[in-house]
C-alpha cells in the first residue's frame, strides 16, 4: 500500500502549463529525489502538494484514501485546507524562519497555537455542557473539575512540545543555540532549524525544496548530513535537489522532471547509471556529480 499517490496532477499559470500530468507513488519510509533543469516545475509540484498552489486538476491519495481532488475541492474552507496540509511538511530554500522568535519559539510557535485553539474549544464545550446541566446537582463540581483538568492538560501539552523541540534541536545539532535568534545563525544552522521546525508537526511526508542551494558550499554538507540522518523506516521524504551525488546516495527513488512531465523515474542506479531517456542522459552529463 502506497503512503502517497499523486494522480495526473496538472497546473497552469494563466495558460502557461507548468505541470502536465504528474503521476507517482511513494511508500512509507522511502526517500524520493526530484531532479531536473531549472523551470521544469519541481518547485511547483512541491507547492501543489503543500496546497500553496491550487492544482488545475489531479488527485492526491494518502494511504490510498483520496484526500484531495482538484476538480471537486475548489472551494475548500481555510480550515479544511489546513487539515489536509498537515499531512505534509515543507522546508524552503530560503528557510523562512520567523526572525522575531528565538530558535526554540520558532519550533514551538505553531504547535502551541494548536494547543491553545484546542483547549479553547474544549473550554467552550465545557461551558456549554455546564449551561445545559446548570440545574442538575453536582454540575458545578464536574464543571470546575473539567476546567482544572483542561488547564493541567494544556500545561502538560506545552511541556511536551518543549521537550519535543529540545529533542529535535539536539537531533539537528542546535542545542547550544536554543535562545539565539535566527539572525545570529549561519545559513546552515538556519536550514537545520527550519528542518526541526517542520519535524515538530510530525508530518507524514516531509518535502524539501532545494534545501542547500541558498547556502555556501561549506555549509551545504552539514545540512545534507542532517537530512541523511532523518532517513528511517518511519520517515518519508521528497527532496528537490541539484546535489546529484546526494540524491544517488540517499534516495530510494529518483524522478527526473523535464518541461512539466516525469521524463524518467526509478531507483538511483536506474536513473543515474542506466537512463533510458536521451534527455535524462544529456541533463546528467551537464550536472557534475
Amino acid at each position, binding site marked *: 500500500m502506497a503512503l502517497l499517490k499523486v494522480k495526473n496532477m496538472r497546473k497552469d499559470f494563466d495558460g502557461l502549463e507548468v505541470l502536465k500530468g504528474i503521476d507517482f507513488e511513494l511508500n512509507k519510509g522511502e526517500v524520493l529525489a526530484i531532479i531536473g533543469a531549472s523551470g521544469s516545475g519541481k518547485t511547483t509540484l512541491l507547492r501543489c502538494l*503543500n*496546497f*500553496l498552489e491550487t492544482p488545475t486538476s489531479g488527485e492526491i491519495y494518502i494511504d490510498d484514501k483520496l484526500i484531495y481532488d482538484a476538480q471537486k475541492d475548489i472551494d475548500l474552507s*481555510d*480550515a479544511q485546507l*489546513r*487539515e489536509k*496540509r*498537515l499531512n*505534509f*511538511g*515543507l522546508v*524552503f530554500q*530560503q528557510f*523562512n*524562519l*520567523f*526572525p*522575531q522568535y528565538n530558535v526554540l519559539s520558532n519550533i514551538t*510557535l*505553531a504547535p502551541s*497555537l*494548536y494547543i491553545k485553539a484546542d483547549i479553547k474549544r474544549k473550554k467552550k464545550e465545557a461551558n456549554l455542557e455546564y449551561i445545559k446541566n446548570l440545574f442538575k446537582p453536582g454540575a458545578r463540581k464536574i464543571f470546575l473539575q473539567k476546567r482544572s483538568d483542561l488547564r493541567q492538560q494544556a500545561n502538560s501539552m506545552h511541556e511536551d512540545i518543549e521537550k519535543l523541540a529540545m529533542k529535535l534541536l539536539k537531533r539537528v545539532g542546535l542545542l547550544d543555540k536554543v535562545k539565539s*535568534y*535566527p*539572525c545570529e545563525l549561519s545559513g546552515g544552522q538556519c536550514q537545520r532549524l527550519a528542518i526541526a*521546525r*517542520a519535524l515538530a*508537526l510530525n508530518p507524514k511526508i516531509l518535502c524539501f525544496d532545494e534545501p542547500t542551494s541558498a547556502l555556501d558550499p561549506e555549509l551545504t554538507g552539514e545540512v545534507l548530513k542532517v537530512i541523511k540522518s532523518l532517513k528511517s523506516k518511519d520517515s518519508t521524504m521528497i527532496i528537490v535537489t541539484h546535489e546529484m551525488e546526494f540524491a544517488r546516495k540517499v534516495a530510494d527513488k529518483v524522478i527526473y522532471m523535464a518541461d512539466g512531465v516525469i521524463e524518467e523515474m526509478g531507483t538511483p542506479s536506474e536513473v543515474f547509471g542506466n537512463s533510458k531517456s536521451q534527455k535524462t542522459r544529456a541533463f546528467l552529463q551537464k550536472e557534475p556529480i
Partner: protein
Amino acid sequence: MDFGQIMLSLAQGFATTCLLFILTLIMSLPLGLIIAFCSMSKIKPIRWLSRTIVWIVRGSPLMLQIIIVFYVPGLVFNYPMESRMFAVTVAFVINYACYFSEIYRGGIESIPKGQYEAGKVLGMTSTQIFFKVVLLQVIKRIMPPVSNEVITLVKDTSLARIISVGELIKSSQDMMKATASILPLFYSGIFYLAFNGILTLLFNYIEKKLNYYQG
C-alpha cells in the same frame, strides 16, 4: 504682564496643541490600518477608491483640508460645524490616517511572501499568521517613518489657528500683542522643541527595544 502670566497663557495653548496631537494619533493610527487594508483589497473598486483618496489627501495642503472640512458642512449642507476643534480634529485624522496608511502598506508589502507561506505550511490560520508572525515585523519596519510622521504632526498642529483654534502659536501671538514683545514666540518654540525632543527619545527607546532581532 509678568513671565508667569505669559507662561500660563502659553500653557493653555499648549494644552490645546497636545489635545489635538493625542486625538489625532489615537484615531488616525487605527484608521490608517483600515485604509491600508482597503488599499490592498482584492476588490478593485475598493482598492482604487481608497488609493485615490489617499493620493488626493497626500497631494494637497492640510491647511486647505482644514478649511474645507470646516466650511463645507455649513455652506453646502446647511449643517454647520458645531466645534472648531472638532473640524480640525477631523481634518487632521483624515490627513494623517492617509499618511499612516501608506506607511503601513509599505511595511506590510515589505514582509516577504515566504513568511506567510511558512505560517500556512505550519497550519496556522490567516489571523494567526497576521498577528503572530507578520505584525511585529511590520511594526519594527514602520517605526522609523511613523516616528517621523508623528514629529511632523506636532509641528502641523500649528495649522489649527487657521480656523481660530487657540493652539500654541495663536496664544503666543496673543501674548506677543499683549506684551509687544517677540519673546512669547521664542518660548513657544521651546515648547515645540521640548515636545519633539521627548518624542525623539521615546521613539529611539522603542526602536532600540525592537532591535533585539535583525531583519
